[in-house]
Structures are given as C-alpha cells and as structure tokens.
C-alpha cells in the first residue's frame, strides 16, 4: 500500500512539516535570551531539507500519492531554490528581527509553513493540491506581514494583502472549478488529455482559463493585478517583504508552469495572448512608476512587477526553451532580490528602517565593500553584463525572438532602458553623493559572509552562467512539458 504511494517523493515536505511542528513545540520551552536555539533549528531544517532533496534526486518524474503530487527535476531544483532563499532571509534578517522584538519562534514557524506551502505549489499535480499549497503559503504570509502588531502600517498592509489575496484565491478556485466542470477531473494529466481529445467544452474552459490566469497573475504580481504589491512591500517588516518577493515568486512560477503547461497546454494559444498583455503592461508600468518612488522597498516592489513581466516573456512562448529561460530568470531574480533586501536590512538598525533612497547616500564612503555589492545588485537588476541579470534578460529575449515575437523583444529592451534609470540612481546616491549618516555599519560575521557570497555570486554567475543555464534546461527536459 505504502509502496504505490511513492511516499519518498514528498520526503522534503515531510521533513519541513515535521520540523515546523517540532520547532513550534520546542520554542515553548526556550527562554527569550536563548531564542537563537529555534533560529538555528530552523536553519538546520533547511539544510536537512536541501540534503534530503539532493539525495532523493531522480532524473525521471515520479508521481506520488495517487498522482496528487509529482516529483521531477523541476520540483527538486525549485525546492532547493526556495530552501536556500529562506535560509538566506534568516541570515540577513537576524539582527533586524532582534532589534524589533520579532526574534520569536512563531516567525520562524510561520516562515517554515509558508515554505511548506511553496513546496506543495511546486510539486502539485492536481488542481486541489496546488490550491492547498497556495493557501497554506498565503495564510502564513498574511500572518507574517501582520507580525509587528504595534505598527499601524504593517497591520494595514496585512489587511490589504489578505483581502486582495483572498479575492485572488477565490478567482483561482472559481476558474479551477470550471475547468473541473468541463474536463471532469482535478488531475492535471487528465485535464490535459480531456483538452487534447476535445472532450472539454471550449467556452467553459476559456472562462475557467481567464480566472486561473487572473489568480496566477495576482500571485506573480503582474499588471493589472499588482495593486497590493507596493503597499505590502512597504508596510511589511523587511524580512517578510523579501520573503514575499523571492521564494513565493519561484513557487508561483512553478504553479503557473504546472497549470498552464502540464494542464492547459492544449489551449496555449489562448493563454499566450493573455500573458502577452500582462507582460507588456508589467514591463511598461512597473518600470515607469518605479522612477517616481522615494522609498527603496516601494521601488523594489515596482521593480518586481517589471521583472515578473520579463519573466513572462519566457513563459508565454509556450515551449520548453522559453520555460527554461523563464525559470533561469525567476531563480536569478530571487537571488538578486535577496541581496538587495539583504543590504537594506544591513543598513537598518534599531528604530531606523533605512528604506528611503536617501539612506543610501555616500555608502561608498562609509563602506566601499557593501556599496560594491549593491552596485552589482543594481546592475544585475538593470540587466547589464557582466552580472547574471544580463543572461536572464538575454535568455527571455532570445526565447521571445526565437518564437517570432521580435516586437516584444524591442518593448522589453526599451523598458529595461527606463529601468536602468532608477537602478542607476541608487548607484549615483551611493557613489556620487556625500553621506548623511556617519555611523559605522555593524554587521554580524555570518551575515557578512553570506551576503558577500550572495552578491559575488551575481558576478560569478554573470561570467560563468553555463552551469545554471544547463540545469534549467535539464530540469525541463525530464518533465512532462511539451
């Protein structure tokens, strides 16, 4: 009985769930000044999860739990990306959390539950599994956004996020129910088959598709479903902001890929059109509105919107090359974004958020090293060689041109010119202006090390990207993507 479940396929999920539950319990018995025990246990969990994923790595796709989940290279790769992302967030945010009285067990546990939700989104092979994963992630994130109870802006952001997020979930579920209604199955493989054999009613399927795409667009934060992003980014405590901005994007990408490609490839022509509109609007509006921001977190929020627009360029080609380009994009974007928020948290201290653009003034005088890392981050976001952001843009643009969308490529490069302006402005503030702050930057040793490696990785991957490009290509060849 257990044998046909293929229970091992979900081992990383089991590990994270068990650990999250245990840490919740253990944390009850840990006194406030020994809270780092919970912290390190969380880090240990992530490490174990990475190891487990690596040891159960298989080249072929395994369906488990009666086809509810699928464990393929794509899932393994993206799960590891999420583990690493959450681990880095914990490293970067430790001092921040301590300074604001948020260094508490429930924060770690909620992060782990959010992570578990992402893992389910990444591995789901069934409409309901995917939906459950999404809800688990979202509910944990709503709670995390509100975790600074004494902070009005945080609470407001949490409310906004919750109301709009619930609406988006509703839309997604509504769309899924229509797809279920017309194809007669929740299983993505059955859905795909029903569409290819034309058993599904086209009208109902299309209606369902529209709602599903809208729900996904909300989670990916693309225009016109982006309204929540700037407020939530600004209002949430920075560690939560970076959590929302990185790993969930990876998971949402995986979910979009599962739904649109594994399930709805038969109507790819129709969702392609929708994604083109979403992509173009995001690239243009995201970049344009980012120019006028004075708050770093808001600016990065609009930058996320724009970047998800670029990522969609790869997804909308509806072929494996495009998917692997989009995957490369989303993974490297997460890496870059982690470093950017890492620096924001590094500059903050008790009672000082360091989230205004002017807080970056003269950083090169105060600390040439962190200014250099931020420089790498900004040029990577702008898509300039020799940073990894260049190859991310290069690959999605190549995918678009290869699929015949030269005009989309031109829109993409022109909007990235607009983007370059506000990324350059940060470099300008750091290098050309005189510092207003003169306090020394005090950073924990482990944070320094991890953040430096993270930053330098942007450069190293920018010079030698072939391994990561190869991994992204392999991850998609072994799965059931056309």
């Amino acid at each position, binding site marked *: 009985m257990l044998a046909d479940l293929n229970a091992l396929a979900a081992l990383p999920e089991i590990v994270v769930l068990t650990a999250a539950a245990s840490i919740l319990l253990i944390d009850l018995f840990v006194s406030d000044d020994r809270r780092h025990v919970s912290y390190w246990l969380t880090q240990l969990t992530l490490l174990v999860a990475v190891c487990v994923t690596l040891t159960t790595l298989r080249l072929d796709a395994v369906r488990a739990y009666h086809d509810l989940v699928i464990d393929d290279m794509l899932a393994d790769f993206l799960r590891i990306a999420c583990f690493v992302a959450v681990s880095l967030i914990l490293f970067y945010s430790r001092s921040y959390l301590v300074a604001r009285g948020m260094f508490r067990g429930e924060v770690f546990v909620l992060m782990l539950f959010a992570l578990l939700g992402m893992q389910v989104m990444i591995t789901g092979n069934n409409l309901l599994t995917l939906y459950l994963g999404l809800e688990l992630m979202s509910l944990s994130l709503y709670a995390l956004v509100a975790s600074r109870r004494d902070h009005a802006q945080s609470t407001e952001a949490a409310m906004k996020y919750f109301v709009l997020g619930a609406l988006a979930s509703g839309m997604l579920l509504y769309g899924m129910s229509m797809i279920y209604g017309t194809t007669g199955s929740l299983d993505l493989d059955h859905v795909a088959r029903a569409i290819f054999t034309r058993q599904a009613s086209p009208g109902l399927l299309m209606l369902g598709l529209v709602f599903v795409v809208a729900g996904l667009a909300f989670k990916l934060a693309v225009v016109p479903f982006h309204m929540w992003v700037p407020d939530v980014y600004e209002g949430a405590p920075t560690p939560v902001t970076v959590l929302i901005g990185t790993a969930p994007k990876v998971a949402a990408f995986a979910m979009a890929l599962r739904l649109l490609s594994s399930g709805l490839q038969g109507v790819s022509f129709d969702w392609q059109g929708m994604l083109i509109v979403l992509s173009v609007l995001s690239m243009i509006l995201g970049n344009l509105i980012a120019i006028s921001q004075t708050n770093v977190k808001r600016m990065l929020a609009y930058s996320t919107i724009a970047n998800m627009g670029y990522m969609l360029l790869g997804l909308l080609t509806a072929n494996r090359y495009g998917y692997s380009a989009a995957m490369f994009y989303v993974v490297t974007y997460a890496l870059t974004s982690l470093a950017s928020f890492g620096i924001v948290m590094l500059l903050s201290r008790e009672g000082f958020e360091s989230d205004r653009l002017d807080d970056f003034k003269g950083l090169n005088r105060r600390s040439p090293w962190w200014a250099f890392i931020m420089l790498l981050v900004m040029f990577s976001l702008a898509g300039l060689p020799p940073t990894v952001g260049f190859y991310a843009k290069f690959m999605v643009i190549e995918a678009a041109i290869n699929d015949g969308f*030269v005009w989309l490529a031109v829109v993409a490069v022109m909007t990235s010119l607009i983007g370059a302006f506000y990324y350059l402005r940060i470099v300008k503030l750091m290098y050309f202006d005189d510092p207003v702050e003169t306090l020394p930057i005090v950073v924990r040793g482990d944070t320094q090390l991890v953040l430096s490696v993270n930053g330098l990785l942007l450069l190293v991957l920018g010079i030698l990207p072939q391994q990561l490009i190869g991994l992204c290509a392999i991850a998609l060849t072994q799965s059931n993507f056309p």
Partner: protein
Amino acid sequence: MTPYLSLSIWVPIAAGLAVLGVGRDRDAAFARWIALTGAVAGFLVTIPLYAHFDTATSAMQFVEYASWIPRFGIHYHVGVDGISVLFILLNSLMTVLVVWAGWEVITTRVAQYMAAFLIMSGLMNGVFCALDGILFYVFFEAMLIPMYLIIGVWGGPNRVYAAMKFFLYTLLGSLLMLVALIYLYSVSESFEILEWYKVPLEMGAQIPLWIAFFLAFAVKVPMWPVHTWLPDAHVEAPTGGSVVLAAITLKIGAYGFVRFILPIVPDASRYLSGFVITLSLIAVVYIGFVALVQTDMKKLIAYSSISHMGFVTLGFFLYSQLGVEGALAQMLSHGFVSAAMFLCVGVMYDRMHSRQIADYGGVVNTMPKFAAFMMLFAMANAGLPGTSGFVGEFLVILAAVKADFWLGFAAAVTLILGAAYTLWMYKRVIFGPVANANVAKLTDIGRREFWLLTVLAVAVLGMGLWPKPLIDVMHVSVANLLQTVARSKL
C-alpha cells in the same frame, strides 16, 4: 602559443582588482605604483601583437577559441586583424598615460580611480578583439560601468547629470543592438561574427538590423544629431576620463561600423550610404562652426572630436581603399591628438581650476615649454602636414574627391575650420600679454607632465612623418573588408 590577446584583456583587469583589493586612501602611493605596474604590464603584453603581426593575411590572428555557453553556442573567441590590432596597442598605451596623468592630480579614492581605468582598459581591449557577438556585447556594455563611475565620482560640478546622460544615451543604442544580435543568432544559429558575414539576409531584415546597429554605434562615435552627450561628458569628466573617452571609447563606435555594419548588412549600408555621408558632412561642417564659438576649452575639443569623427564615418561609407584606410588612420591620429589636447587642458586646469578661455591669455610667458607642446598638438588637431592629423584627413579627402568633387570640397572645408577654431583658441589662451595675476603665477610643466606630453608628441610626429608601418598593417585587411562588403547578401 602565448595567449597575448587574453593577456591584454585580463592583465589590466586583474591589476585593477588588485588595486581595489589592497588600496586604501591612506596608502595611496602604494595603489598608484600597483596601478602603474599593471598598466605597463598591460602595455608590454600587447607589443608582441604588433611585432608578430603578419601583414600579408587578412585572416584573424592570435586567435583563441573556447566554449563558453554551449547552450547558445557562445564562445570565448578572440582574434585580431589589421583593422583592430592597432587599437589594442593604442588603448593599452593610453592606459599607461592616464594612470600616470592622474598621479598627483587625483587625491580622493585613488585606488578606485586607478582600478576603474585599468578595468576599463581591459574591457575595451576585449571589445576590439571579440569575435563572438555576445562576448563583444558583454565587453561593450560592461565598459559603461567604470566610465559612469569615473565621470560621476571624480567629475566636475554637473557630473551627475553628465554621467546619467552618458550612460542612458549609450545604453539606448546598445540595447537595440542586443535584439539585432539575437535576431542574427536566430537566423544563423551562431553568434560568430565571421559567420554573420556570410549569412544571406533579405533587404526587409537588413534595414532594421542596420538601424539597430547604427543607433548603437552612431551614439558611441558620436554622429550628429546623437552627439549631445559627448560635450557634457567631456566637460564634466576628470582629465583621464576625457582622454579615454576621446581616444578610445569613440573609436569603439567607429570600429563597430567596420566590424558589424558594413560586412553584416552590406546592401542596407550601400542603400543608406547617402544618409550616413550627409550626417557625417553635417558633423564635419556644422559641428566645426559650433566648436568655433565655444568659450570652454574642453567643450571646444569635444566638438572638435565630433567633427573629426565625422571624417571617419565619411571615409567608411565612400567604399574605397583610400577612404577606409584614411578613416582608420584618422581614428589612430585622433586618439593621440585628442588625448594630448585634453591632457594640455588638464595641465592648465590643475593650476588654474578653470577651463574658460577668457580666464587665460599669455600663458606662453609663464609656461614656455608647455606652450611649445600645445603648439604641436594644436597644429596636429588642425591637420598640419607632418603631423598625424594630416594623414587621415588627406586620405579621406582624396577618396571623397574621387567619389564626387563637391563631396571632397565640403570635407576639405574642415581643414580651414579645424585650423580656425584650434588655432584661435590657442592664440587666445597662450599668446598675448599676461592676462591676469593668476596666469602670472603659473609654473611651467614638471618632469612627469613633460614626459607624458613627450610620448604623445613623438607619436603624433612619428605617425605624421612615417605612417607607412601603420598603413601596411591595415592594408590587406581593409582590401578584404571591401571585398566582403562588395558581395551582395540578397
């Protein structure tokens, strides 16, 4: 075989990183010496490129070829022919001079300043010898980063505006080029530039490709009317930045014309050659007049650069051996002359902290040695026979007259204009009675400045009197280029 080209790219970059790593502001002298050692080493490794260069073949030499990103067939493929090899030498020599020129002048963040120039030098060598489209693009774009910082950190009062304008302007052009490169890849399944010379392309594809490449390189050259970033960048940049911008960066734009535009889209180039010639003549004549009325010395030289670069694009689009060789000679000569002119202005600026012509007058009385050097460079800028400035301009005018008399006539006007604005400036600044107390207090050039200007003076005179060794290097490659360009791709 020693990988001289890789050395010429990576030695300066490694030296730059080393300077960044060890240099702190308190031991600036240490950073300076490492930088100078790196720059000299970077120049020495390029000498074999000239010494072992085979002038009898147009094939790429010193080729290095290694797989880089197999997924897209991108290679680390470098090599030089007669067109590109001289620019690598020019660039590496300029790096030594620039490091040396900033020796005492730069006192804040010395290590970062030196490192920026060294890294920039390596990247520019990469641009000149890359034979893979993406490798070229990576160097081409990465180059913007150090230049942006050089202008913005060590520049004049309006440096932020100038740095932003420089960056966004040049990025605008190059981003469209990226689309063009990827489009060529989708047609040819290869990023090899030499493969692209052979790919058949319809006129409907050639024209958009031409426009994309043209925007990228015309902004860099810069051609009228996309030249407006240059005067700002030059005026605000520190002396070293101006020297590198004028001597090397502008050449990269012109180099793009011969490496990409002419051979890859030959039919579109022929079809649109009238357009380019018109723009070039406007640059030569109109910008010449604009230079005449400048009151800021650096701005005047910046406009004179645009005017001189107009000659280069004019020479390319005449489609004759004389024209192309003249244009290349003009590029080399302008590299020396503009560098020298900016250094001269820098010498005065370091003492007076003013670039306004009106603040000077009678400098010859207090700085006779300097006045003599500047005389030579001003003459070279005006294209006096016997100086390097004459060679290129003469060849291009000759080619222009052969193509069409009035074309040649219009181009020759520049000789008059060039002499007018350069010598008039020289007269107002150097000659006459001592204008004010500040000029009276000037001290003549020291040993460092003397040798700096001597190196350039030797280059300017040597190339003017005996240009044959340089022209010989280009000859076969240019002939081959013209053959490639003559073949239709339709």
